């Protein structure tokens, strides 16, 4: 139980007052010599049971009355339905607000979203609790922002909905930094979130570090989680997976690939979903049948004016539980040429790599590959390169810096081993020695759900298991294996990077090393996927996950789509179509937002293990206050106790008449 005036509870020993008075009274009795002792003895015998009980009951109710008064004066707090969850007045109250798209899921009743409900409940709660200082850390910028009063949450644009996901560990890190930097006293951290797995990343190692860090604060930090874990079972989301322009005999078509996803619970029910396509304001509608939880539609054709080579568009479905995933923006332009730089010292490996990089996957797409030596790297026009294929000792010095800069810009690099790998190290990875066996080493497993070895759009897996790996080079360093050989050695691994992507193949397409060249599908798919990702970065029509372009800055972004009330400074976090200089940008929620996985209750408890933590679950549209003062209940209890005490103290009816007889 928590109280707004907890110091008044120091008076709780006063509850013993009736007992003390009783004991004092017993010592202050009057003595009388009494003749009619036989009646007194009889009365005393009769009174032994009920009267003693009544005496104790009177004392109990007097004590309850005092306790009720003290509790009422201490202003106890209660949350609506889970019991009591708040603390007393804190020196600093930090609000971590999850603004991610999933928080915009609405209730069927009031129409308030989880975010709006959470803000209202937070305002009611925090105004009741009071605090010396209120600080907002919202999920987009994660910058601490001091508020004059909790009511500012209702008006502040930065507390409104966003398309960017939340990163709870980073928000907590921000809260930690604020507490440490400002030397805050007793701090309450209120987290308002819908517990989506992608926002909380519970497997992240940052949680244990954060727990330890918060535990080190001597003043104590108390966490309150205001959770809205319910999901709408029939919510449908739409996403554009690919857009490209195609020249036809009549003119030009825009080919739009879609993905419709439905959250669990609907089973195999078939639903017709009308999808509205909007290209630069021109609208058309097409219906798609959705069966099961996920369906993809490939290349829906929309006629275009032949002269329109670039532009923006939007697909949308009728409003449902979550309006944040009911539309998706896209931009299109002539695709940039897919240029690859190949650095290789093994002539047998160069050719397959060059082929894989230069054969265009589609008609009309320009793919080129240029083979250079390491010394020529400085002459390469890196801003036009999408992929770097490196089959040579790991670069060092200036060459290494160029590669790093390329990756930081969003470029893709695939490293392959050379016969003499050397001692070089890059991106935390280092080549080891070659391993050669009599028999080819089979591929044991590989990740087919994501990244460069993912299944094709038709759902078929890449034939990675059919590869013959005759010899492979060992790898050391912290990486994510995408394919592993029998025995656990990585065949393909991805090194951690902030932007871009760096892959390491443990073998080469050379015939003595593997069948990557002869069974070229895997190598081709891998190279082309990396190439496509690299081209997407340098293209003039880019799809960006909300919150993903923050490093580039959004000051020169111009919004192309209407109906947004968001701040221009938040452009990178709000879905929409934008132009920046000669580029077209489509900002949308990340794909992880559509998954809808919610963190299990036990897992949440584990994340805050050892910390002072209280959780209250709410529902979107819940108008009830999160915390209520319940002093009236205690006051009524006190009055009731006094009434009962008075009733017990009343003399029995008829006693006076009997005595007079």
């Amino acid at each position: 139980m928590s109280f707004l005036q907890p110091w008044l509870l120091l008076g709780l020993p006063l509850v013993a007052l009736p007992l003390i008075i009783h004991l004092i009274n017993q010592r202050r009795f009057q003595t009388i010599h009494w003749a009619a002792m036989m009646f007194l003895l009889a009365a005393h015998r009769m009174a032994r049971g009920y009267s003693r009980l009544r005496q104790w009951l009177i004392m109990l109710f007097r004590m309850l009355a005092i306790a009720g008064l003290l509790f009422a004066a201490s202003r106890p707090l209660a949350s609506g339905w889970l019991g009591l969850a708040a603390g007393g007045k804190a020196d600093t109250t930090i609000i971590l607000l999850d603004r991610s798209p999933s928080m915009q899921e609405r209730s069927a009743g009031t129409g308030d979203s989880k975010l709006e409900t959470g803000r209202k409940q937070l305002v009611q709660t925090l105004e009741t609790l009071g605090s010396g200082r209120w600080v907002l850390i919202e999920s987009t910028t994660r910058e601490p922002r001091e508020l004059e009063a909790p009511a500012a949450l209702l008006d502040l644009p930065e507390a409104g909905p966003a398309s960017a996901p939340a990163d709870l560990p980073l928000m907590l890190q921000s809260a930690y930094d604020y507490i440490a930097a400002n030397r805050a006293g007793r701090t309450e951290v209120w987290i308002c979130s819908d517990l989506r797995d992608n926002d909380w990343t519970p497997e992240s190692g940052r949680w244990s570090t954060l727990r330890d860090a918060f535990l080190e604060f001597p003043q104590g930090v108390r966490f309150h989680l205001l959770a809205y874990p319910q999901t709408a079972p029939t919510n449908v989301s739409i996403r554009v997976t690919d857009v490209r322009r195609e020249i036809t005999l009549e003119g030009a078509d825009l080919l739009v690939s879609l993905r419709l996803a439905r959250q669990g619970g609907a089973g195999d029910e078939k639903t017709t979903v009308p999808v509205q396509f909007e290209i630069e304001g021109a609208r058309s509608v097409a219906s798609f049948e959705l069966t099961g939880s996920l369906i993809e539609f490939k290349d829906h054709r929309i006629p275009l004016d032949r002269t329109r080579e670039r532009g923006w568009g939007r697909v949308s479905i009728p409003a449902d539980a979550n309006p944040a995933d009911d539309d998706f923006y896209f931009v299109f332009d002539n695709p940039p040429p897919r240029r690859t730089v190949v650095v290789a010292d093994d002539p047998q490996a160069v050719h397959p790599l060059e082929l894989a990089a230069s054969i265009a996957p589609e008609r009309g797409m320009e793919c080129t590959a240029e083979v250079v030596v390491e010394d020529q790297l400085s002459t390469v026009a890196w801003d036009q390169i999408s992929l770097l294929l490196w089959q040579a000792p790991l670069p060092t010095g200036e060459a290494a810096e160029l590669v790093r800069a390329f990756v930081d810009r969003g470029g893709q690099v695939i490293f392959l081993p050379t016969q003499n790998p050397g001692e070089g190290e890059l991106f935390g990875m280092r080549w080891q020695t070659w391993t050669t066996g009599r028999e080819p080493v089979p591929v044991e497993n590989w990740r087919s759900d994501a990244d460069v070895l993912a299944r094709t759009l038709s759902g078929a897996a890449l034939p990675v298991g059919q590869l013959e790996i005759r010899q492979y080079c060992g790898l050391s360093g912290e990486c994510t294996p995408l394919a592993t050989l029998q025995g656990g050695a990585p065949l393909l691994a991805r090194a951690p990077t902030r932007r871009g992507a760096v892959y390491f193949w443990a073998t080469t397409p050379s015939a003595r090393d593997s069948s990557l060249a002869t069974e070229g599908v895997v190598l081709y798919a891998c190279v082309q996927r990396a190439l496509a990702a690299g081209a997407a970065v340098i293209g003039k029509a880019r799809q960006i996950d909300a919150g993903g372009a923050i490093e580039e800055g959004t000051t020169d972004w111009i919004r192309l789509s209407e109906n947004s009330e968001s701040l221009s400074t938040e452009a990178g976090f709000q879905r929409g179509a934008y132009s920046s200089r000669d580029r077209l940008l489509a900002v949308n929620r990340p794909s992880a937002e559509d998954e809808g996985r919610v963190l299990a209750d036990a897992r949440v408890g584990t994340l805050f293990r050892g910390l002072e933590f209280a959780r209250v679950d709410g529902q979107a549209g819940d108008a009830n206050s999160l915390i209520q003062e319940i002093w009236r209940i205690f006051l009524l209890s006190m009055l009731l106790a006094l009434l009962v005490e008075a009733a017990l103290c009343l003399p029995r009816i008829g006693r006076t008449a009997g005595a007079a007889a």
Partner: protein
Amino acid sequence: MSAESGPRSFLDVGVLSRLAAMPLFARRPMQGNVSGRHASPHRGASVEFAEYRKYVPGDDLRRLDWRAYGRSDRFYVKEFEADTNLRCCLVLDTSGSMGFGSTGVTKIEYARRVAGTLAYLASQQGDAVGLACVAGGVVQNLPPKRNAAHLRLALDILERTQPRGETQLAAVLHELAETVRQRALIVILSDLFIEPSILRSSFQHLRFRHHDVAVFHLLDPQELAFNFRRPMRFLDMEGGAAIFAEPNDIADRYDRALQQYLVDLRQVMLESGVDYQRVSIDESYEQVLARFLVGRAQAKGLR
């Protein structure tokens, strides 16, 4: 009041003079060795005709009623009541509980006034007066006599007696029933804090011995109305036991026990033919005695 008795603090001359007009009657025939105003159980030559009965051989021929013989041709013997004096035995409870009094007068003082006045009145009308002070046993016993010196002695005892010890009234009444041989008016002055069932046998014993029994049941008003407000420690005036009690808690049960006792006691008195007077000692003892004497005079008229 006679000159021989001297001034007594517990005797009020005014009360004595007013009550002197009311003779003390026994409700039953009395036996005495001198003539007086009380009916005697013996038949013989006297002043008051009693009844006729048939002559049986052996009867004194002088008592034959010849006139009756002349009218009815049968022999009848005329019998007369022999009037005699009253033997009044006052039994005063002097146990510790009689020392209680919440109105400025203790029960023993009140009993002393009643007993002294009765003794004086009886003596003045020529009756014999005796006094027994009882507590755990018979503390003082003065057999009934009718001379003035005896009255003075009885009043001396009354004046000196103090409440002390536990009461064994029931046992003492049994003892008195045996020791008072002739029929007498036994006047008991006590708070009767004894189980009524125990008293029943004592009174029946007295009645078996043909005594006329009268009881003054003396109670203090505070004993009747248990009206304490503060927590009290009650010390037994006879045994010394102590009870701590919250009056509010115990008062109703006290009243119930008291009322039950009074009902039972009245029932015992009725069954035993005892002349029962319940007296709250805040009443005027003159009125109590006047009521008693009038009641007895009326009872005599009905006999």
